[in-house]
Every structure is written in structure tokens, then in C-alpha cells.
């Protein structure tokens, strides 16, 4: 056992040496965990933000002016006035997501109870803004009309006083969520590519044969690659959370980063093993690249980090329960955002470890078969 640990340790040190020689790769890893996390967190918004809106003001009344002025940041850019004849051209060019067409006589018709209509042209190809933005516009029109009549705002007329409190993230700031999910996705991609490619490279260069003539076993080779590459990613993730997310983006993390990193170590074990498994399936580096991309893309698209896991079809949920990323995202959301302790998250950690053991067993079996073929 002592010998096994020593060998695995030395093989891991060899991994460090080969990674540190690849300067471009080191720079890329630094880039994804710093600048990329930052820009993704600040640019990616799930809410309607800065939507471009134009108004065709056919009425030029107080009411139409109020509606136009009420389309304001942060949801909308200040409304631009355009001409009716340019409507189709502007929509085709995608210059605006919304163009409001206010008819002549809006205010007069409204005051005499004729119930006029404002047409809103929505560019429905921008699905992130079209639906919610239309609802905002409807709300703004209703609000401006009531305040135009000097009536009290509708909320004051509600029979109850609703107090909505978002726990763990009072202002529902998307930044902290996007940033941490960015870190998680980077961990997944790197774990698969870094370790899988390390195996693939040795196969292509034939250096696996050098290892074979030495007194090391397949499990020691795998363990060396897993711990060394895993440690690099773990350190990068820790740096990213502490420095980029907490200090630079100034988003407080409620939970314990240490618990999160412990869970990440378990996750890395599972995903790096999956990377080795994929590398034993592929025959060349391009094959490995084409094979691993769909794997990690599905792993993070369907893991619950992009869309709520509960909203996916039940069958798909059952399949995705076999992916370590699903459990990792659930663990990370509980540990990082809700400050959950080990008493809440132990189950997901256990499942990740179990899946990792399964991947390692299959990878080891295939790895041995591969070595036998090559020797």
C-alpha cells in the first residue's frame, strides 16, 4: 500500500511537470477562472435588462408622453421616438426589441371610455426579453394611466400587505449565482479535458509503453493523473471563489467555501475518472475532443445550473441523476447559497463518490485492456 501511494505520488508530480511546461494551457486555465468568470457574471443576465425600445407617438398627448417617459432603465434603454414608416425596416434589422405604436386620439378615447389599444411590436426571436418585457410594458401602461388619473397606485388598494422576502439573496442578485455556476462549469470542462487529454497524449506518443516497462500498475497511473490534475483545478476554483467572486465581484457567499471545496474534491474524483474513461474509448485526440464536448455540454446544460432541475421532464431527471454534475450543482446551490451544512448535503456527496468509484472501475478495466493491446 505504501509503495502504491509513493508511486501514485511520483506519477502525479510528473503530471505537474508536463502541465507546467505547457505555458499556454496554464494561461488559459488562469483566464477561465478569472476574466471569463468575471465577464460572464457581469454580462449574462436572466432578467430583462437594457432592452431597446422605440415609440411611435401618434397621439402626442400628456398620457402618451408619460408612457414614453416611463420606459426607463434598468429594464429598458430610454425610449427612442421613431416614425411609423420605418417600423418594418427597424424590426427587420433588429434595432429594437419592442416598438410601441400609440394611436392618434389615445388620451381622448381613454377619457371618453372608448377603451383604445396600444400595439406593441415584439421581436419574438429574442426569447430572453420578449415575454417578460411585454408583461413589463403592460404593467407600465396600467400604472401610468392610473397615476394620470391621480388615482392611488393599485398596490395600496389590495386588501393584504404582501411582504416578500428572498432568503439567502435578499436582492435576488443574479451575479453571485452566475459567477459560481461559471466556476462549476469550468471545473467540469477542465476535469474532463485535462485528465482525458493527459491519457490520450501518452497513448499517441507511445510513452505509455515507457510506463509499462516500469514497475507501476494501471491503478497507480490513473491515481497519479487524477490527484495531480484534480489538485490544480481545485486550487484554481478556490482562488476564483475567494478572489474573483468574493473580492472583485463583491458578492457575499453565504455558505462555507471550505465545505464547497471538500465537495468539489469528491466531484473532481468522479469527473476526472470520467475523463479517463472517455480517453480509453477514443482512438485519437480529435476523436477524444469530439467525444468529450457533447458529454460535458449535456452535463452542464441539464444539471440544473441553467434551468431549474424540477422543470425538466421526469424521465430526463432520472437519467441525469446518473451524472455527477447534477448532484454537484444541487450540493453547490445548497452549500454556497443557502448555507446548508453537511447534514443536508451528505446524500449528494455520497452519490458523487459512488458514481466516481463506478467510473474508476470501468476506466481501470478498459485501461488495462488497452495496455494489454498495446504491449
Amino acid at each position, binding site marked *: 500500500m505504501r509503495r502504491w501511494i509513493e508511486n501514485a505520488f511520483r506519477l502525479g508530480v510528473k503530471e505537474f511537470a508536463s502541465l507546467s511546461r505547457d505555458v499556454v*494551457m496554464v494561461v488559459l486555465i488562469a483566464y477561465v477562472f478569472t476574466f471569463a468568470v468575471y465577464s460572464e457574471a457581469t454580462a449574462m443576465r436572466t432578467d430583462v435588462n437594457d432592452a431597446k425600445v422605440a415609440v411611435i407617438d401618434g397621439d402626442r398627448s400628456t398620457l402618451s408622453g408619460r408612457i414614453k417617459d416611463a420606459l426607463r432603465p434598468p429594464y429598458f434603454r430610454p425610449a427612442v421616438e421613431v416614425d411609423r414608416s420605418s417600423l418594418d425596416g427597424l424590426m427587420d434589422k433588429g434595432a429594437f426589441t419592442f416598438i410601441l405604436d400609440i394611436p392618434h386620439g389615445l388620451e381622448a378615447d381613454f377619457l371618453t371610455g372608448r377603451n383604445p389599444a*396600444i400595439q406593441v411590436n415584439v421581436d419574438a426571436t429574442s426569447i430572453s*426579453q420578449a415575454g417578460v418585457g*411585454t408583461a413589463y410594458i403592460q404593467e407600465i401602461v396600467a400604472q401610468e394611466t392610473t397615476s394620470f388619473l391621480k388615482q392611488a397606485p393599485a398596490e395600496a388598494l*389590495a386588501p393584504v400587505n404582501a411582504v416578500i422576502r428572498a432568503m*439567502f439573496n435578499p436582492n435576488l442578485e443574479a451575479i453571485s449565482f452566475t459567477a459560481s455556476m461559471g466556476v462549476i462549469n469550468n471545473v467540469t470542462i477542465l476535469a474532463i479535458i485535462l485528465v482525458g487529454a493527459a491519457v490520450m497524449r501518452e497513448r*499517441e506518443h507511445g510513452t505509455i509503453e515507457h510506463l509499462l516497462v516500469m514497475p507501476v500498475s494501471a491503478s497507480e497511473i490513473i491515481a497519479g493523473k487524477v490527484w495531480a490534475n484534480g489538485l490544480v483545478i481545485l486550487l484554481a476554483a478556490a482562488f476564483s471563489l475567494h478572489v474573483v467572486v468574493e473580492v472583485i465581484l463583491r458578492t457575499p457567499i453565504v455558505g462555507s467555501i471550505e465545505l464547497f471545496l471538500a465537495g468539489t474534491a469528491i466531484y473532481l474524483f468522479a469527473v476526472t475518472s470520467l475523463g479517463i474513461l472517455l480517453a480509453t474509448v477514443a482512438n485519437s485526440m480529435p476523436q477524444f475532443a469530439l467525444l468529450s464536448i457533447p458529454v460535458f455540454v449535456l452535463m452542464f446544460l441539464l444539471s440544473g445550473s441553467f434551468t*431549474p432541475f424540477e422543470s425538466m421532464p421526469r424521465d430526463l431527471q432520472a437519467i441525469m441523476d446518473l451524472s455527477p454534475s447534477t448532484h454537484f450543482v444541487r450540493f453547490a446551490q445548497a452549500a454556497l447559497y443557502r448555507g446548508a451544512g453537511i447534514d443536508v448535503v451528505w446524500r449528494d456527496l455520497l452519490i458523487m463518490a459512488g458514481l466516481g468509484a463506478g467510473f474508476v472501475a470501468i476506466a481501470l478495466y478498459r485501461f488495462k485492456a488497452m495496455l494489454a493491446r498495446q504491449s
Partner: protein
Amino acid sequence: MCAGPADASERQARLNDDVEIDRRLRAGELKFAVDIPPGFGRDLLQGHRPEVGFWLDGGNTFPAETARAYILGTLQTYAGEVARAARSANGLPAETPRVEPRFRYNQDFRSVFAITPGSIMLLLIIFPAMLTALGVVREKEMGSIANVYASPATVGEYLLGKQLPYVAIGVLSYLSLLVFAGGVLGVVPKGSLLALSLAAFVYVFAPTAFGRLVSAFVSTQVAAIFGTSILTAMTAAHYSGFLIPASSLAGPGRIMGLSFPALWFQTISLGVFAKGLDTPAFVRELLVLAAFALGFLLLARLLIRKQGA
């Protein structure tokens, strides 16, 4: 209106005290909890406007926003009814102006029509770029690039020979994506097929040339795979008008978008698939795409020649 994890029956979950609410929200069992205080019915009937507490799980912002919108929406609809009745009673016009949305280019508002053109844009930039980069870096890593340097082929010939096959693969990918989009997803181009095909042909030159450019910097295949995938996928997904409309991009995001071919092809792809536009609408985009292809190629050639010398 309950966005509970299982279904609406979660509404019945009995939450006796704040500790229980806190524990179940923390464990992710509940997405939100409604806290009705004692004496609620009495206060309501006496017109005291009693408080109702809504506790959201703010951990994942998107479902929390949705839950909040539903809660507020329900309340506002009701308050709107009260306000309308009050207006009628005071002799004011009861109905506020109607807002009639016209969802253009995608009347049913189905996401597949908006996402498919973007997916084509993404796939046609990630894979050609990565494969081209790997094509060269592979020879670098294995050492067989020395044969090329020793051979009478010029750098230009070598580069073109290593790029054109991947352009062909890109064009084939485009054709199969087109068939898949039409046959399986039912998304067919409403506008000029010729414009789209021409654009796709010019477009795949750009990522293959970009792959070349990456190959000039990296020396290992791992770095080539990782580098091309993050550079192309991140820029193309975030700053092309795919997830956020191009008109809403501002600051550095806008500059990144404009200086990468993905945004320009996305405009054509959306324009042809969803908006039914014709070739003349895209002259500028086509020229810009051609400029990208040429620019990346010249840059790559410059860098690789320096290396070979």
C-alpha cells in the same frame, strides 16, 4: 401559484414555525413558503390590511424571480379589479388602454424557432475552429511538422492544404444541420436560402482561419482543444445576439461581439430563418464575414512564417 419542488400539493405542507421554514428552504425542499399570521381573517374583515409573508429561496435567482412575479401578479390582478371598481364608482374611465402585443417573426412564441438559428451559428464556429487547430498542433506535438518545413511546399500552400478540408467539413456540417433543422425540428428558412448558404460558406472560412491562428500560439493538443472551445463558444454564446439581443449589448460585450464573426452570421441566420429576409439585406454582414476570414488567415500566416524561420 405555488412553485414548489414536487407539485401544488406541497402547498399543504404544514410549516409550524420559522425554524421549520428556514430548515426546509435551506435543504431545497421548498421554493417558497407562505406565512399567514394569527388573526389574519379577523384583520382582513376589519380592513386592517394584514401582512402576509412570502419566503423565497433566493439561492437560484431565476426561479425566485419567477415565483415573485407570480405572487405580485396575482395580487396586482386582484388590486386592479378593486381599482377599476373604484374608478367606475367615481365616474372615471374604468378600463386602462389595452396593450396588444404582436409577436413578430415567431407568432406562436416557440423557442425552437429562435434557438435553432443560433445553434447552427454556434456549431459552425466551434467544431471547424477546433478541428483545424488540432490538425496543425497535432503535427507540432508529434514532430511530423518538421517534414513540412523540410518539404518544398510553401507555408501558404501548407496552410491552405490544412484549411480547405476543414472548410469542406464545415460546409457538409451546414448542409446536415439544414436538413436536420427542417426535417426533424420543422424549422425551415423563410427567407433566401441562397443568402444563408452563401453566408455559411463564407462563415466557415472564418473559424477555420481562426483555428489556424490559435494553432500558431499553442503547442499541445490539450491547449488547442481547450483554447478554441472556450474562445469560440464563450464569445459566440454570450456576445453574438444569441442569448442576449445584439441591440442590448453594451460596453466591452458589444466590442467583443462586433469583433468576432459569430454576431454577424447570427444576424443573417436569424434574418433568413425567422424574419424571411432576402440577400440585399445582408450585403454588409457578408462583406464583414469575408473580411474576418481574410484577416484571420493573414494574421495566422504572418505568425506561422515567423515561427518557421
